[in-house]
């Protein structure tokens, strides 16, 4: 994911620069496709199989959806309550991710000049939460912030504050799993941005902060926006860490995915309806990304 999101100089053609062609000059898209030649038939077959693996479950979801009851199902009180909680927590999580993640992305982009071990450590710290199963994230959060956790134990004893089973815990779980998406989107935009503009600003007497605020940030704004949308979507879909760390109580911690999973126990139609709702959000985000921000960032 991070690799594909970073707009590498040659990401457009997918091929390493060929000898004899000056770096930076790329052929038009159609020429590149023609040059790549035709796909072997076996690859096409496997590719179609891969497509089926990705698409068929969603097709089944749409086909099996209780369309007649759908309006009633998605507007029922428990679903609306979960939807509201999901939207509120995912929005807060996205704001937190922006506030914390953009500076981290800048640090990551600047770490290009740092010694290699440090750079790799930094990158791993952002990548690992991305690769972890969210349930593992939930367990880790519990061990840190639970009532007997490293920090949570101290919080509970000193301040009488407990984090699990609160809406705050939902937000923390969402931030944990979704921040890497934002960081890598912004970092990708940063490393693709033209450094010379920043250097020019600095030469003209702008302070570091002014350069960041008035040059760098506007330059990578599309990347920040795309990252924020990805982050929001990931937060909205968060399940494993939430149910492990935050619990499941209507209106407090039971977000849409958690509600969907519970509904599967008693009312599969409701579970399917919630799943469709989440699918619709994902599709809407995809459309939003394509139309608005793709020119800026190949997200």
């Amino acid at each position: 994911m991070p690799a594909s999101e970073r707009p590498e100089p040659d990401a457009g053609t997918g091929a390493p620069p060929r000898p004899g062609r000056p770096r930076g000059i790329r052929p038009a898209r159609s020429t590149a496709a023609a040059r790549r030649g035709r796909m072997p038939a076996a690859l096409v077959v496997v590719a179609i199989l891969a497509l089926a693996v990705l698409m068929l479950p969603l097709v089944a979801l749409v086909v099996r959806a209780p369309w007649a009851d759908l309006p009633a199902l998605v507007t029922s009180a428990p679903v609306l309550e979960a939807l509201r909680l999901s939207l509120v927590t995912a929005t807060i999580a996205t704001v937190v991710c922006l506030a914390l993640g953009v500076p981290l992305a800048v640090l990551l982009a600047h770490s290009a000049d740092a010694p290699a071990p440090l750079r790799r450590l930094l990158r791993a710290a952002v990548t690992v939460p991305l690769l972890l199963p969210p349930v593992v994230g939930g367990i880790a959060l519990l061990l840190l912030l639970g009532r007997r956790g490293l920090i949570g134990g101290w919080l509970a004893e000193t301040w009488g504050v407990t984090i699990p089973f609160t809406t705050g815990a939902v937000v923390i779980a969402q931030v944990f799993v979704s921040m890497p998406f934002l960081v890598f989107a912004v970092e990708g935009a940063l490393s693709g941005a033209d450094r010379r503009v920043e250097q020019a600003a600095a030469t003209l007497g702008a302070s570091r902060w002014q350069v960041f605020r008035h040059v760098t940030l506007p330059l990578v704004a599309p990347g920040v926006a795309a990252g924020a949308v990805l982050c929001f979507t990931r937060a909205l879909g968060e399940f494993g860490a939430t149910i492990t760390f935050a619990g499941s109580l209507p209106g407090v911690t039971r977000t849409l995915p958690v509600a969907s999973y519970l509904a599967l126990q008693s009312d599969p139609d409701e579970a399917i309806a919630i799943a469709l709702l989440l699918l619709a959000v994902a599709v809407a985000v995809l459309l939003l990304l394509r139309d608005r921000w793709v020119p800026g960032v190949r997200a």
Partner: protein
Amino acid sequence: MTRRPRRGAGAAAASAVALIALSGCSGSDAFTPGDEPGATITVFAAASLTESFEQLAAEFEAAHPGVEVALSFGGSATLASQILEGAPADVFAAADEATMQRVADADATAGEPQVFATNVLALAVPAGNPGGVTGLADLADDDLAIALCAPEVPCGAAAATVLDAAGITAAPDTLEQDVKAVLTRLVLGEADAGLVYRTDVVAAGDAVEQVEAEGTDAAVNAYPIAPVGRAESATAREFIAFVRSDAGQGVLADAGFGAP
């Protein structure tokens, strides 16, 4: 240089095909278990049966060389949904009769469900009882962290019955998907009290204590077991008979289950 990627793609395609062939194979095995040695039966059992069914399966395998018992544990309702969606189960042991009825109503059972054990709830607290819990009334205490099962699942329905009978409006901090999730909250000390099955208190060992409280036995869960699936399997029937035998009942009693 130019040949290498091509060979790689061929290998990838071949392994993909092999994968399909393999998965198809194991699928058909699971659907048509026979009596012959080497048969595998898949048992779907309620989460609360985890420890006792693991032991029962091991003893059954020991008594039937070549037979393999694959176990899948989960919330009864989840398992029922999986069976109704065609999951390859041969035996289903549910934590309540309503859930089994849902499977039977859909004609997914291959034989009459039989009750093989009963279970009652227990008021459980983490070791040392940090919340100072003394009775069911403490479940209404807002200052305590309370974990219960969601009313949609059997242990939650039982909890609702117990609380109703005691005239208590609980103040839960979390309503979990299954009883083991409630138990985990207690084991980790995140919750001060919760209602779990008596068997779960036994299973959790020293990490969890039972608080003797009046009224927890207001709901008695009966555990039905039935063969399920398309093909009726003799091994599945034998396993069910073993669960209901004296030896099987002994294992269940040790785990804290009541007799049917």
